[in-house]
């Protein structure tokens, strides 16, 4: 019972959505299922928030090492939540000025906008920017021309990096537009780094990306079928969990 009903639900939902692609009459069903899916996804964020709350409270109550940081997380979480849910500092929509709740929750100047603009945005951008240092350091250690394949990877990465920045133009921008050995379709400027980088992206990268994309599509299709037919039940967890 605990496993049969979920298997039935997932199979029916999945096959109905597949059916909407082939039977136009089912399109409305598919749209409704998608709307329900989006609502559930929104509630999944609430579940995530609840889980965060639970974990941090457990950390604080058992006074685990670093519990002070858990308290900071909770305070930041609640301040953001209150600011956003109660639309603190939000003015009403000009088209419905009598409704105090009609303004956009992310309206410029509101407290929630302030948290987004001055805390969330700088922190997330800097977190990703920090990776620039680590990715460069990792590349320095990993990119050794040990064999022919590694050499190809290294050379291509360097050409694309240089070709897509000012350095490429600065280094090879002076190549002339004259034909090489009278060969009409090939010029010296075709070997400039920006042009080489463009050719690599258009011609040599496309086959690899296409093959990977085809592989991913086949993988997704087979995994989806396994889930819908009940062959893969890992998403249900173990029986002990119930």
């Amino acid at each position, binding site marked *: 019972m*605990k496993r049969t009903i*979920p298997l039935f639900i*997932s*199979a029916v939902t*999945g096959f109905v*959505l*597949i059916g909407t*692609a082939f039977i136009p009459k089912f399109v409305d069903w598919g749209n409704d299922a998608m709307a*329900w899916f989006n*609502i*559930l*996804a*929104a*509630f*999944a964020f609430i*579940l995530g*928030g*609840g*889980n965060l709350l*639970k974990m941090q409270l457990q950390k604080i109550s058992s006074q685990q090492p670093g519990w002070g940081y858990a308290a*900071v*997380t909770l305070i930041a979480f609640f*301040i*953001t*939540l209150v*600011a*956003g*849910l109660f639309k603190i500092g939000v003015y009403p929509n000009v088209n*419905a*000025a*009598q409704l105090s*709740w009609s303004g956009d*929750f992310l309206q410029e100047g509101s407290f*929630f906008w302030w*948290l987004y603009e*001055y*805390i*969330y945005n700088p*922190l997330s951008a800097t977190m990703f920017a*920090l990776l*620039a240092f680590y*990715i460069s350091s990792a590349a320095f250690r990993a990119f050794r021309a040990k064999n*022919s394949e590694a050499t*190809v*990877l290294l050379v291509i*990465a360097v050409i*694309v990096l240089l070709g897509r920045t000012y350095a490429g133009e600065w280094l090879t921008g002076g190549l002339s537009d004259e034909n090489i050995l009278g060969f009409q379709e090939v010029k010296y400027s075709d070997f400039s780094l920006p042009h080489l980088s463009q050719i690599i992206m258009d*011609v040599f*990268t496309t*086959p*690899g*990306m*296409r*093959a990977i*994309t*085809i592989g991913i*599509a086949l993988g*997704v299709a087979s995994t*989806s079928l396994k889930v819908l037919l009940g062959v893969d039940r890992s998403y*249900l967890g173990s029986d002990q969990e119930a």
Partner: protein
Amino acid sequence: MKQSTLIWTILMVAGGAYILYQASQGHGRVFVREVPVEAKSSVKGSEQTYEWTKYQVVPAKDKNQKDVRFNLSRTIGLWVAAFCTLAIFSFLYGDNPVYKFTESVFVGVSAGYAMVVAFWSEIIPNLFGKLFPSKAKEIFFLDIEEKSMEPDLWYLVPLVMSVLLLLRLSPKGSWLARWPLAFFIGATAGIRLISYLEADFVGQIQNTIMPFIVFGADGSWQIVESLKNTIIILGVVSCMVYFFFSIEHEGFVKYVSRLGVWFLMVTFGASFAYTVMGRIALLSGRLEFLFQDWLGIGS
């Protein structure tokens, strides 16, 4: 004191002194222009007018203009953003309490942000708005048409499933959360199966079916275009052969799959370069914020 600690301390004191100097010169302040807003009630027969002021950020050079004034909350925000940026960068020196503090703030704010966005952009318009359309129109002014003011009771299904999903947090009823989870998984599988097969599988094969030899409008042989097409077709086939693990990669197949590996290496090299460039662009964005927006250097 260790030598490295001494160097870092000197650098930080020098940096702090420079920041204070820049601040004393008037940098790191936000000025805004006041824009009065006047709106009338949209209720028929009501003449009530509502007034408030919006603020528009202006460059510091315009601070002496009429209606322009110093804005404290945005100035504090600028300094908070600068502190957050420097605190995250401090991780380059090593894991430290300042970094851990900002990391915790980031986790909390991110979770809160995601919940608020989900609530206002999905739950209120698409769940509350469908179940209680007249109430939603009365409170939130959703763009609900008069003809669709009847509640759509089918939306009780996602409401019930959502409540069941939240039971995941309860120790006893957590098994009930499998039902909405199953719906979620089934819907994802159904949508992905079709969309991936259509756009990625069939679409990519379709794009690869192209002529080996290309002729121009005047009937001339386009050597470069023909070469491009040939490389792409051979590349896709050789990469696919490499990914085909059901046969032994020996003899002719071995050479073809080796060619595929070379194409894949080119792809990975280019992808790596793009990733690095993306990160560097983000880094330069943060440095631009620190130097120009905050310290006013080079602005």
